[in-house]
């Protein structure tokens, strides 16, 4: 059900772009206003969301560890799996953000006859997730050639590395294919693994369908229903230099592509996609395992009213003396 709902949302978005451009001729709306609004929503939304998060304290010191903690000097400790200082935490976070190290430990659990609970290696999600995120990043960087002039050299290098197989003309860019395959795997996984399907919501499917739509329209535009790339760059560069113009004669596929991306950008701060910022703020990952060296004070703690023994004795000294209870001060 969730998948169908999300699928129809994306179909409706495609139709809105098609009708808006082909039917109503709202080129300025779809070529300029919506992209600007989407990017503004994205940047402001992400900042506000992160600031909102930063206002919640971390009450407990809860790093998850899977290595020897730093203790006595002659016990070798695991700097990455149980970091004791900032440097270790940075290394651990880098592995987490760049290589999804904790997902690498993903296991599959099966109940076999007996009944016996069996755990097994399951790296497919890690592999597809890594392929998906990295190719998406490279695709994003490659698109800088539409938003900069002169195009920075690193973009040209990435583009030529991406197309180094030199298949066809315009040359095939590998990351586009990998991105589409990986995101398709991420979708099929939600459909075919019953446990994952059970917990999947429309909000899980919508980004997948949006990205499938974006990748498909981009691939269509590059290899099959070509649009006038020079006019596209005039439009996109106009957006980047704040002198927007919408040249006539760009194919409708481009506006579908642009509208789906705008939707993704605008949706970003309100969705699970905020894991982009959230991964940096996971207390189980970004805290050093140093709770035996440094006291972590809960920021919620308020000053507790205490009544010390000295104060108690001060209050009841006479009564204590009369009852024959020994006192410390006479």
């Amino acid at each position: 059900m969730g998948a169908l709902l999300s699928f129809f949302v994306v179909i409706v978005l495609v139709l809105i772009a098609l009708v808006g451009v082909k039917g109503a001729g709202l080129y300025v709306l779809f070529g300029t206003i919506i992209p600007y609004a989407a990017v503004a929503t994205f940047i402001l939304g992400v900042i506000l969301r992160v600031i909102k998060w930063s206002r919640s304290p971390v009450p407990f010191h809860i790093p998850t560890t899977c290595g020897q903690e730093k203790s006595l000097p002659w016990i070798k400790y695991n700097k990455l799996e149980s970091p004791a200082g900032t440097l270790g935490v940075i290394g651990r976070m880098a592995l987490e953000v760049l290589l999804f190290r904790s997902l690498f430990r993903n296991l599959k659990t099966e109940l076999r006859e007996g009944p016996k609970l069996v755990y097994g290696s399951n790296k497919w999600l890690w592999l597809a997730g890594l392929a998906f995120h990295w190719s998406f990043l490279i695709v994003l960087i490659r698109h800088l050639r539409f938003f900069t002039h002169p195009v920075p050299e690193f973009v040209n290098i990435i583009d030529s590395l991406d197309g180094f197989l030199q298949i066809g003309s315009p040359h095939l860019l590998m990351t586009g294919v990998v991105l589409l395959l990986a995101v398709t795997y991420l979708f099929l996984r939600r459909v075919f693994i019953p446990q994952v399907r059970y917990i999947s919501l429309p909000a899980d499917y919508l980004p997948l369908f949006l990205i499938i739509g974006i990748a498909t329209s981009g691939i269509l535009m590059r290899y099959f229903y070509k649009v006038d790339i020079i006019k596209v760059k005039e439009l996109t560069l106009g957006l980047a230099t704040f002198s927007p113009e919408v040249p006539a004669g760009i194919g409708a596929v481009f506006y579908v592509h642009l509208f789906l991306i705008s939707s993704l950008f605008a949706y970003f701060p309100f969705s699970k996609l905020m894991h982009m910022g959230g991964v940096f703020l996971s207390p189980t990952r970004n805290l050093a395992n140093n709770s035996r060296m440094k006291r972590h004070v809960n920021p919620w703690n308020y000053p507790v009213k205490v009544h010390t023994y000295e104060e108690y004795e001060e209050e009841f000294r006479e009564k204590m003396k009369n009852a024959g209870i020994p006192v410390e001060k006479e």
Partner: protein
Amino acid sequence: MYDAGKILIGLIIFLAFATFPFYSNMGKAVAKPDPKIDTPVIQQLEVKKCVESKEFMRAEHMQLLNEWRDAALRRGERVYKGSDGRTFQISFQNQCLRCHSNKKKFCDECHSYAAVKPYCWDCHFAPKEAKR
């Protein structure tokens, strides 16, 4: 706000990435590409028409060149039949570049604007252009 310093550094890094296209273009004037087809050979032609229509060539020239390369060099076919029935010798050097001898003002004009680097010139000589 807790850990304000770290949060702000993170947000500044995010902004630096997210707004890269906006600040990296600041103060740069960009001339739109204006490819020229005014070579001497083209000016002498009676019917100024490429092997296919202008629209087709604009969108599909790279694919056509790729097909010509495969036909001529891999299959030895040297004749191309256009969609309007005319036939042409398949040759980049003797057919395409005979008219479009102005690589800088014809090919490079758009290619450098869109940051496209075709590998034609890995094998072919670029036409000699009169220095102006």
